[in-house]
């Protein structure tokens, strides 16, 4: 048989050694590797002499889905060893798996994720059999720490057992069928010379069976092409050990890359020694006490565990278990991360964190010069250079003119693409914010290039990519109005506030389902400011924002009519939302597809609805008053105030009224609303006054000090008194204290009266 199948676990040094030995022994004509077949004509790019780890980043976007995934390589990846050693041995090297965009990979962001998860039952049984904690410990026990002799048979037995008779899922079946075709083609082409196939061990049994059955292949299989209209591509990106590590990365494979890197370079004993030292050093740097006695204990325990578990040298968990038993002298809050799988949670013991971090390592890959990069990288580099933003330090921008406006937009676009190293220190925080200066701090960052390459998935130019990223965020915000407000402001800052039909639809749909009036009001306020005033960012009159205003006004009015409830403290956010509606109706009528009469009718209904909460009724009345003021169809405010005169309701009703029609109240003068109010409050009993007081205070807080002074002067005049209106507004003690004193006073009087000690009961 000329085809040799090497089933591997991705990122396993033991498997990498096996691949190296197999290629050296067989000197094959073809080496076939599990990897994206559409990258085959660019293999030279992969072998340019990068500093590992690097990854092939692939992105894809079509009408239905958007997908990004990585195919990572480090020095001890069996796939990497197969590529490099295969080349060196003069073999033809090819990737044989489906391309990353293929639907078989939908939902997977790492091609080399462990497949064990899909066979958890079998591995669980083995873990129990060998009495180990999890599959990683099992793998170390059975493979990594064992002698290289007989490795191929041991691996084959392991994977056959784990895969068993169970049928693979649909995705795996499609991939295996495709890989089998390449194997047949290579077999035919080799004409009797050896062929080495390096794939995940779980595919090995299936591939052997498939390739044994299948008809011979004529020529190399064609590489599937993405559907028409889809965009996508693959580029190399620098990768890092942090992302490789299962403890911190998502969907990754073997944990502790630094440990395995050292095992690959120097063997397990040297790796254990070096990492013990690294852990102790990092703990001592963090001022955690580690005595020599602790160190001796750690060594002894590691040695003991190694022997107990029958290992020839300390395995990863022997090392970790020895260290943790010796160094941790507290109870732990959570179980040790290496007894389970998944990311390290917050609150882990500092010694445990240091151990995991030391074994994870901080190596970062670097691409060789001349590695092709997506157009976005070149666009950004040129743009930054042109605008003089390629340095480091603080940059202050004057937003009132060019070229700083363009510079600001460029920086904001990089920010929304999450490219590290561009931080906004200060600048305008909203459409009506009178700040015209923006300060940025620029710091060169090693992660900038990978982030840019990955952002390349959004588009070829910075403008396009930022707009696409914002589109995505708008769609993702859905009915979450606070998120939407943030995105829209970002869009304004990026100069991307133009509107496509698709986005308009997504926006309308999101707003139409927004559940929270307060949040809607927040968006409406933000956007109205940007739409009306913003000449700096150039968003005044923007159709995107017009559409948002229209949607929000309709939604708020719809929501308001549905609110039911008895007396309750005034909801200020709700009142602000209604105020924003009033502003929109007054100042942005041309973008609202709803006439004033309809708004007035809604407001009148709410204000007359006895089931609606008082603050909302007051606000609705205020809305009527302020809008109708222009048309002259005002309702009778005095009657309305008398209607809301009960002490539990009055303050909240007024809060609504003042939030919406403060100006009208003042303009109407002391003869109307305020006079009625004065009369009503004067007639309140002591008890009722105390009940109404907090809400009344809140309501009058809507008036700025100057207007409060006007009101106070009116009160003095009405009583025919002379004096300073301002001094009336100042109180000698904090109002809470006065209220408490009044209440105490009242309680004492009541008590005295009931006991018959006071003749005249209080009014």
């Amino acid at each position, binding site marked *: 048989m000329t085809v040799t199948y090497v089933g591997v676990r991705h990122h396993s040094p033991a498997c990498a050694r096996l691949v190296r030995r197999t290629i050296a022994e067989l000197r094959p004509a073809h080496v076939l590797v599990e990897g994206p077949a559409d990258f085959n004509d660019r293999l030279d790019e992969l072998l340019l002499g990068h500093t590992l780890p690097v990854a092939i980043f692939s992105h894809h976007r079509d009408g239905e889905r958007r997908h990004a995934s990585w195919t990572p390589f480090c020095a001890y990846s069996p796939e990497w060893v197969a590529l490099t050693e295969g080349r060196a041995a003069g073999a033809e090297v090819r990737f044989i798996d489906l391309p990353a965009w293929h639907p078989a990979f939908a939902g997977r962001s790492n091609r080399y994720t462990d497949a064990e998860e899909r066979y958890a039952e079998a591995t669980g049984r083995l873990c129990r059999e060998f009495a180990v904690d999890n599959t990683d410990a099992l793998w170390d026990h059975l493979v990594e720490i064992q002698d290289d002799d007989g490795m191929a048979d041991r691996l084959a037995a392991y994977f056959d057992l784990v895969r068993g008779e169970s049928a693979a899922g649909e995705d795996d079946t499609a991939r295996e069928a495709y890989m089998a075709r390449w194997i047949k083609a290579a077999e035919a082409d080799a004409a009797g010379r050896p062929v080495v196939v390096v794939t995940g061990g779980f595919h090995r049994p299936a591939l052997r069976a498939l390739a044994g059955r299948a008809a011979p292949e004529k020529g190399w299989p064609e590489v599937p092409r993405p559907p028409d209209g889809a965009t996508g591509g693959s580029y190399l990106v620098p990768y890092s050990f942090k992302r490789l590590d299962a403890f911190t990365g998502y969907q990754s494979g073997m944990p502790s890359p630094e440990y395995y890197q050292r095992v690959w370079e120097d063997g397990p004993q040297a790796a254990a020694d070096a990492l013990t030292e690294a852990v102790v050093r990092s703990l001592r740097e963090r001022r955690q006490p580690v005595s020599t*006695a602790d160190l001796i204990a750690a060594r002894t*325990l590691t040695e003991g565990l190694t022997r*107990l578990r029958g290992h020839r040298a300390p395995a990863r968990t022997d090392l970790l278990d020895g260290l943790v038993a010796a160094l941790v002298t507290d109870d732990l809050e959570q179980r*040790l991360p290496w007894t389970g799988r998944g990311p390290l949670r917050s609150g882990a013991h500092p010694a445990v964190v240091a151990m995991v971090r030391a074994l994870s390592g901080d190596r970062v890959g670097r691409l060789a010069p001349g590695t092709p990069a997506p157009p976005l990288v070149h666009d950004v580099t040129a743009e930054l250079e042109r605008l003089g933003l390629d340095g480091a330090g603080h940059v202050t921008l004057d937003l009132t003119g060019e070229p700083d406006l363009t510079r600001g937009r460029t920086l904001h676009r990089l920010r929304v693409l999450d490219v590290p190293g561009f931080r906004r220190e200060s600048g305008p925080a909203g459409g009506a914010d009178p700040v015209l200066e923006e300060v940025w701090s620029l710091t060169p960052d090693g992660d900038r290039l990978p982030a840019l390459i990955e952002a390349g998935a959004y588009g070829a130019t910075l403008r396009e990519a930022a707009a696409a990223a914002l589109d995505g965020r708008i769609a993702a915000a859905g009915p979450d109005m606070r998120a939407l407000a943030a995105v829209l402001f970002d869009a304004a800052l990026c100069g991307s506030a133009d509107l496509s039909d698709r986005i308009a639809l997504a926006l309308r749909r999101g707003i139409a389902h927004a559940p929270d009036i307060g949040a809607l009001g927040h968006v409406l306020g933000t956007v109205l400011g940007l739409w009306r005033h913003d000449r700096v960012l150039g968003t005044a009159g923007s159709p995107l924002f017009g559409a948002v205003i229209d949607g929000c006004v309709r939604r708020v009015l719809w929501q308001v009519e549905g609110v039911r409830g008895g007396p309750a403290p005034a909801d200020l956010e709700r009142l602000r939302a209604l105020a924003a509606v009033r502003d929109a109706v007054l100042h942005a009528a041309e973008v609202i597809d709803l006439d004033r009469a309809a708004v007035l009718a809604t407001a009148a209904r709410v204000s007359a609805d006895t089931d609606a909460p008082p603050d909302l009724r007051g606000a609705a009345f205020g809305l009527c008053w302020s809008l109708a003021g222009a048309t002259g169809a005002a309702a009778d405010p005095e009657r309305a105030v008398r209607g809301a005169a009960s002490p539990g309701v009055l303050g909240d009703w007024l809060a609504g009224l003042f939030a919406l029609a403060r100006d009208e109240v003042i303009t109407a003068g002391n003869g109307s609303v305020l006079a009625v109010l004065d009369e009503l409050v004067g007639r309140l009993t002591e008890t009722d006054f105390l009940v109404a007081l907090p809400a009344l205070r809140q309501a009058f807080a809507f008036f700025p000090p100057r207007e409060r002074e006007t009101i106070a002067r009116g009160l003095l005049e009405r009583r025919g008194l002379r004096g300073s209106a301002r001094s009336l507004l100042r109180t000698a003690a904090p109002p809470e204290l006065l209220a408490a004193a009044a209440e105490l006073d009242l309680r004492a009087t009541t008590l005295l009266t009931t006991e018959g000690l006071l003749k005249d009961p209080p009014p």
Partner: protein
Amino acid sequence: MTEQMVQRPPAEARFADELERLRQNDAAPRPPGWALSLDAARRFIVGDDALGVRRKFVGDPSLIDRSLVTLATSRGLMLVGEPGTAKSLLSELIAAAVSGDSTLTIQGGAATTEDQIKYSWNYALLVAEGPSTRSLVPAPLLRGMAEGKVVRFEEITRCPLEVQDSLLSPLSDRVLAVPELTGPDAMVFAREGFNVIATANTRDRGVNEMSAALKRRFNFETVFPIADFGTELELVEAEAAALLERSGVQAAPRRDVLEVLVTTFRELRSGSTADGRPTERPSAVMSTAEAVAVAHAVGVRGWFLRGEPGDAADIVECLAGTAAKDSPEDLARLRRYLEQQASRRGGEQWKALHAARHRLPGR
């Protein structure tokens, strides 16, 4: 007194046959003073199908590895964790495996004195003969040192600090002075095989108050509640079935009822539901041991009141006593859980649990 009449014989008696089989098949080297090799001791606890040795502790096997290796070194073993995580069972099993004797036990408490740890006197003999080895009454620590055995110290943190510190010199110098005696009897040197397993639970005073000197002489192992739902369910089912049989209940517990029970316990313990919604954690201990106790009570209620296995309504009745104990806040938390979480679940038993929520006492 025959074996049958003892309510709960020690581990070395309960599993005498397993220990014997392991001893006969034990070819690996034994640490000095040990009854079994490390490997055989490990198999005694994690189980060995080939020798017919049952798995006795459900938890990470690496915890057993670390514990045994610790005992083979010069540091003591400190098992810490929430109440009801089988710390005492584990210490008993380890002592039985390592020394063949798990009875050298000191029960820690507020009233524990040095006498109960080291030695005391037979006062009649002391008065008649003066201090001598005859009038000396050795306590577990002295015996463990003299005989080279593992001493168990339960709930060490419940003892006063100065009493805890009486372990210092036995653990570091491996010697215990008896100043009342003279000559070679005045110093008891620990023989090979002596070590200490202490347990402490994190709900009581915790290990933070322990002196640093004593902490340094122990390796700490935290015992966690069972991570895996299936494993915990199996354990509860097996233990409850055994208890019910001993109580004379002839109906085995229903699995769907136990599923509801174990899920409730796990969610209240972790403070979040399986789909990630937060719930309020009661201050009472929601351990596996408590779940077994509730399952037992549920079965007893069902059988002796109605002649059938217990159902979800019985769970509610029993939960009030075990989970809420005497705390009205816990009762409120429990009520909220039953109202809000149980109603979301599908399945007959969840519906029954929700329907029975009014059986909680109060309000």
